[in-house]
């Protein structure tokens, strides 16, 4: 019966063009439903956020200087009147029913609810039974891509000027899949896993990121001359994705070439996408080019949300003394705002931060100044107040 109706409608629409148009529109609407991988790039989260609502975000202050810099960031956000409500959680591991230490359930529920988190530096406790907290968070929220934009800060001079590189790294598999065996005594094998799904996901994210942030080139970094099948698969996924984004330039470079050229002239690279290990090393190297981990933001994008963090250590020697530099966490928070499409607020906070560093009147110890964290924060807040209407 249904078949008859369908064929009847088809025949009718062929003769009546307006009716045909109506039916086409109906079928088009069906096709705009989410295709396989676009949920990641479309940021299903973002679609339900309207600019007039107040959003809830989880904040994990962390250890050491974590609480101070988190407080600084919250103060700056308040000064910029960002429509965010913070929900602070503690991820100190608790002993679960299986005896292993894990993240408390309340923290997991909070991030699952809010879908967006900001994390300060965490100290992984030493001892048996403690899994790496970062690894646990990554597995819990399926964080598949790590984004680290490295930009030279005006006012903090390094050997490299005009660095503006973004490293996008696959975060779940690759060399760090953790599959290792001792085959015989004295011979160990470690497995590097590359899957088509993960590679495609991160490649799509890379191109989407490039397009949205108005960048122009994506470079895939690989070693396919040696690891032909694994990096070859990664490259193939990147190439397939490149065809879907014809206005973004795409090139492939060997890892050695990228390393060699990056330390001589970093301006030739724009966005880099790569598997886990190369990404780990290159992103830290690029952070070193601009001034270290204390100035580099970092974001982890997942299927179920995103987690933005500062990647420096807990610096226990200056904890509690109001000497910490909140720049890394602040820039990560700005990344978070852009992810949530709050670009106006993001621009104001970012430009105020850069202006304060350029002015060089209030610089913290690691940038070569003598100001306190609170003075630095206040200087930024003043600039925000001056900039806001």
């Amino acid at each position, binding site marked *: 019966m249904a078949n008859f109706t369908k064929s009847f409608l088809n025949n009718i629409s062929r003769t009546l063009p307006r009716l045909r148009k109506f039916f086409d529109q109906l079928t088009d609407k069906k096709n705009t439903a989410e295709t396989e991988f676009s949920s990641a790039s479309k940021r299903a989260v973002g679609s339900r956020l309207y600019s007039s609502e107040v959003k809830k975000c989880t904040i994990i202050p962390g250890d050491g200087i974590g609480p101070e810099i988190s407080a600084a960031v919250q103060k700056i956000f308040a000064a910029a009147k960002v429509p965010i409500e913070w929900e602070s959680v503690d991820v100190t591991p608790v002993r679960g029913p299986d005896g292993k230490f894990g993240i408390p359930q309340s923290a997991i529920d909070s991030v699952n609810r809010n879908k967006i988190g900001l994390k300060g530096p965490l100290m992984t406790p030493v001892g048996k039974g403690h899994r790496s907290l970062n690894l646990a968070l990554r597995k819990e929220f399926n964080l598949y891509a790590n984004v680290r934009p490295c930009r030279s800060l005006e006012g903090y001079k*390094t*050997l490299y000027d005009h660095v503006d590189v973004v490293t996008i790294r696959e975060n779940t598999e690759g*060399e*760090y899949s*953790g599959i*290792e*065996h*001792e085959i015989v*005594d*004295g*011979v*160990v*094998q*470690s*497995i*590097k*896993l*590359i*899957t*088509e*799904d993960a590679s495609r996901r991160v490649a799509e994210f890379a191109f989407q990121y490039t397009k949205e942030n108005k960048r122009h080139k994506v470079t895939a970094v690989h*070693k396919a*001359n*040696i*690891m*032909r*099948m*694994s990096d070859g*698969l990664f490259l193939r996924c990147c190439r397939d994705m490149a065809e879907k984004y014809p206005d973004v330039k795409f090139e492939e470079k060997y*890892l*050695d*070439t990228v*390393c*060699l*050229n*990056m*330390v*001589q002239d970093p301006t030739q690279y724009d966005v880099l996408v790569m598997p886990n*290990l*190369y990404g*780990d*090393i*290159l*992103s*830290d*190297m690029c*952070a*070193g*080019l601009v001034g*270290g*981990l204390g100035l580099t933001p970092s974001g982890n994008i997942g299927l179920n949300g995103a987690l933005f963090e500062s990647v420096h250590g807990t610096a226990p020697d200056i904890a509690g003394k109001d000497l910490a530099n909140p720049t890394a966490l602040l820039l990560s928070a700005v990344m978070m705002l852009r992810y949530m499409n709050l670009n106006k607020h993001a621009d104001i906070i970012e430009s105020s931060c850069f202006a304060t560093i350029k002015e060089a009147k209030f610089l913290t110890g690691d940038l070569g100044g003598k100001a306190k964290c609170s003075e630095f924060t206040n200087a930024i807040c003043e600039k925000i107040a001056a900039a806001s209407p």
Partner: protein
Amino acid sequence: MSSRLLPRLTHLRQVHSELTTNSFHKIPHHIKPETSPLPLYGGRHLVTLLPGIGIGPEMTSHVKEIFATAQAPVDFEIIEGTGEELVRNAITSVRRNRVAIKGNLKSVIDEDGFIAPNVMIRTKLDLFVYVTHYKTYKNVYSKWPDLDLVIVRQNTEGEYALLEHESVNGVVESLKIVTRENTERLAKFAFEHARKHGRRKITVVHKSKQLELSDGMFLQTIKNVAHHYPDIQFEDMYIDRCCQKLVRNPHHFDVLLMPNLYGNIASNIVCGLSGGSGLFSGMNYGEDIAIFESATRQTGESFVGKNIANPVAMLNAGVNMLRHLGKSEHARLITDAICHTLTTSRVHTPDLGGVHSTTDVLSEIKRYIEDVKHLN
């Protein structure tokens, strides 16, 4: 006379048994001939020359030119070709001559599968260590002045085992192999090398937090060897922190000791910081065989036929080879010529920011050598 023939016969037996097996990687058995001197015919050494692709043929011919000018007593046995045949001929020749100089060899995919001659030659000849010495030249632009770093890198196993398979459609596994035997040999070589050349500190680079078994064993084995060398300062560092530190403060390091892939990355970083890939050479060492090439092993495709490539890298490889052969006066002569050309005459090719051609650099080097010979 007959005792000189004996080692060569054992070599041939080993060559036959190895070439008839299929595995490209296995725990290499040590070729331990009696210590015999390097082959010498009429006072002249015979070395293998593997020109390869890209700028390899041009650069290795420049080495021959300069050796002729300096009257170095070295003859070259040139091995060319592709694929399996090239690997077979190269290995036979290098086993006979025990010393070689090479360019980058072409990787091919033919009916035998994926042939990567560079990796295969290193593995089959058991060249387990790769040493590169990065020393900045005065008056040559480098991001950091006065750098003097040695990188000792594992050369046969690790990520370069060429063992990959696709277990399920869309899922590829690549194996990284680390053995205690190779790591121990590597560590002993590194510490002996450091002692011989007056180096004071060795930094081991690893990622044992994430790769607990493989890099963990690597680190532990090296720590055990380090106990026997209390005169050399020893420290260990994670690879990401090391790369960051190299970019911000490379003077912290003296000798870096690393597994295969990390060594590749760090070598390229340090090379870029010291002046570029046109200047430095690398030495592959086995128990009894040595192969010399340019440090970063680049093909230089974009420089072919344009007369702008920097010949210094391959010339330095030639100098290292002369030193290995015991021809220290000729080595010193050519080194001085290169130094003079780069620092005093400042004849720089475009990769160093200059405007001169390859032939300009070579003429200047030849001129210096001839001047010195006239004085003697």
